[in-house]
């Protein structure tokens, strides 16, 4: 399971295109290493969001994780990143 989890990650190319899309200055560039590091950072972000939502659902004794649980964990999540 842990091995499988490792494999799921963002593609370097996607991340570098995504970041370049948001840059205001066209001269800004991003190196290859930075893209893989940002991919890891976003992976952590998604895992953290999921874990917190799952925990919220557990606290409420719900079977599945729904939109309301994500809504509840969202403010603190955004403050932590």
């Amino acid at each position, binding site marked *: *399971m842990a091995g*499988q*989890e490792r494999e*799921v*990650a*963002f*593609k370097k190319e*996607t991340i570098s*295109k*995504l*970041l370049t*899309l*948001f*840059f*205001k*200055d066209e*001269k*800004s*560039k*991003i*190196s290859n*290493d*930075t893209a*893989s*590091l*940002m991919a*890891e*950072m*976003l*992976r*952590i*972000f*998604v*895992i953290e*969001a*999921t*874990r917190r*939502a*799952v925990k919220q*659902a*557990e606290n409420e004794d719900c*079977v*599945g*994780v*729904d*939109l309301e*649980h*994500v*809504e509840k964990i*969202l403010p603190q*999540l*955004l403050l*932590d*990143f």
Partner: protein
Amino acid sequence: MDEQEAYTQRLKAAVHYTVSKICQSTAAECEKEMSRQAVAAIAETTFRQCEIFAKDLEAFARHAKRHTINVDDVKLLARRSTALSSHIQQKSEELAVNNQELKEKRKKNAAKRKSKEMEGNEADEAGDTEN
């Protein structure tokens, strides 16, 4: 402008795809099911968060009077949480080690190729004289 929007949509779809994969595997570990709306919300959040990250990174690089964003800028981005910052630090070190190894391999391969080429050339020359 329309093309730009289509491009953004495509990137968003790519993010959504990976986010849903990560969500499913993480939720499966915790033995819970994620609803589609929950996954979509996390994907949208990730996309928006990416915009904040990008702008921060750009500002950090600009502050250092650079145009290329560095690994150091990412470390600065992750400074607010100790655990995250040490994880990113460790990852960046791993990346650096990997790069070093790759470089050395490439050097070795290049050297091998050169010596092979030399041999090949010598063989060719030998063949030429025989003909």
